């Protein structure tokens, strides 16, 4: 029911619609033992330049939904639309291109490449783009400096704190200057001080008119968000607009 309301409310403002999903299901191990229904009939819309929060308890399907919206995984059923185009039928190549050009993803566990320095991790997306080593380092340094990590640029992930690793992951997500930035539970692995830094970063990104999509199970980021989607056991349970 709520889904229908969302769509009917905003069907007239398609121009600022960036991501939309319709009746999306995700079932892990479908048809096999240990089948898990992680998402059930989720429909929502994310506007260009908005700061959207996905809230829900552990296991409610936040990571799963972010992965679908961020083209990291394909839904079992339903449609996902980027700027009106259904991407569920996209080829592997087209999805890679979409990820490269438009999406920056910061994973819950950061997923940095071990034994690769911070700046190298940040600049891996530029390797196939043909950017020279110097160019890559320069661009990575600009971001690391902005995120207060310039002095950690040559450290490998193993030598960095959780908060620092997170900022390296954020820098990597930003290196291709994508319009959508997705962060999966960015507040869960860091302390209060690092959280303050994170909030500053998110505010800056928002003022750069990036579209932010963030999952969380606490309330710290709530005051800064435009829209909050509540997830419960794989279903959309509520929407709050500011």
């Amino acid at each position, binding site marked *: 029911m709520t889904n229908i309301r969302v769509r009917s409310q905003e069907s007239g403002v398609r121009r600022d619609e960036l991501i939309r999903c319709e009746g999306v299901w995700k079932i892990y191990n479908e048809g096999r033992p240990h089948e898990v229904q992680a998402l059930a009939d989720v429909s929502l819309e994310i506007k260009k330049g908005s700061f959207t929060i996905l809230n829900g308890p552990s296991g409610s399907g936040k990571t799963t939904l972010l*992965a679908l919206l961020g083209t*990291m*995984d*394909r839904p079992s059923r339903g449609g996902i639309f980027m700027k009106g185009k259904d991407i569920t039928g996209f080829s*592997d*190549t087209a999805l*890679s*291109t979409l*990820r*490269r*050009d438009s*999406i920056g*993803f910061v*994973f819950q566990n950061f*997923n*940095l*490449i*071990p*034994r*690769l320095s911070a700046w*190298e991790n940040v600049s*891996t*997306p530029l*390797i*196939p*783009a*043909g*950017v*020279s*080593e110097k160019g890559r380092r320069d661009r990575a340094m600009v971001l690391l400096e902005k995120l207060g990590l310039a002095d950690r640029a040559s450290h490998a992930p193993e030598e960095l704190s959780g908060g620092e690793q997170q900022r390296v992951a954020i820098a*990597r997500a930003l290196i*291709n200057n994508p319009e959508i930035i997705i962060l999966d539970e960015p507040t869960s692995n860091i302390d209060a001080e690092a959280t303050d830094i994170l909030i500053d970063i998110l505010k800056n990104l928002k003022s750069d008119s990036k579209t932010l999509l963030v999952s969380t199970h606490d309330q710290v980021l709530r005051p800064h968000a435009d829209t909050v989607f509540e997830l419960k056991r794989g279903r959309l349970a509520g929407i709050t607009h500011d």
Partner: protein
Amino acid sequence: MKHLNILYAAAGNVVRHKLRSVVVILCLVAVLFPFLSAIAILEGVKTQSRISVSEGADIYVTMDMFGRNGVIPIEMAEVMKQIPGVTKAVPRAIGRIYIGGKLAVLLGITDDEKPSSLNFINGSLPKAGEIVIGRGLAEHLNLEVGEELNIGTRVVAFIENEPYIIKKMYHVSGIFDAQSGIWASNLVLMSIDDAVSVFEMEDFATDIGLYVRPGYEAAVSKGLQKMNPFFRIQTKGLVRTYIERGFNMKGGIFAALYVLAFALTIPAILVTSGFGLSGRRKEIGILKATGWQTHEVLEMVFFENIMLALISAPSALVLSFVWIKLFNAPFIAPLFIPGAGSIPPFPVPSRFMPLPFVFSFFFALLLTMTGSIYSTWRAAIVSPAEAMK
């Protein structure tokens, strides 16, 4: 630039995944080393025998003896010299004898037959009553130049149950040196007259070698046949064909064994390149998640494999070179040279050629590609979320 970037990234990966790289390289070297060594030794032996064939006479003549090679009167040499095209006719006496319990080849030659392979002698060529012996034999008998050797030929009688053997003392005038090759290792060289008397052939030789002017081989053969239909004629071309055929057969057997070993190694390589695969899979997922294309990931892994092959093939070559040239091919030589013990007493002939090396590189590449490309592709085409799990 893009491909160069990916190449550098691949190099970085080879270094970053040190353990995996080292294990794969060791495996590849273990496969390539015996291959390169065997080819080098086979080529070396082949070359040496080719040289000795080309140095020998152009035509060898023996007498037919009920279908076998029989002895030929030495005086025939003088007659054969008259055939147009023949430049030299040299009788040889060749046979096997036991010296100190070791089988040796005894060769008697005339003064005017001195092929260049006989240049590698410490000492001088044998005159009457003198011999030049091979290194293997010299080591076995603990003999040096200037010493004497008793050569017994046969038992002529038993006196009080003790065999009475005809023996003759020979003066060692020279020893073949290290460069003289495997054929000279257990050779005893003496003058034809001495050899004839050892073999008790009186006025006969084992064969007569004819040196002919280029292009006269066929005509001389015909002339010989006309002179005496009982002559058995072997031309150099024929000998060469026999030798090549022998080597090709040996090479073929080796190739078959190698293919078998190769087939057995593939699973090992598969396992080792799959070594650290879960970490690998995750990294591939991360690259895909940050916008790499599947073909770019594959290109990187391809470059990695090229680098591993580029390290492995020369390493195997160097190892094989050191093993053969410096250590004289222990344990490998006996597989290809009959009579060579696990530590060969003569310098093992070898010849390193570019083609087997190039081959070994592609071998290595093929192996690593087989081991990695499918798993890489699988990790790259699934969704990044799945690969990163």
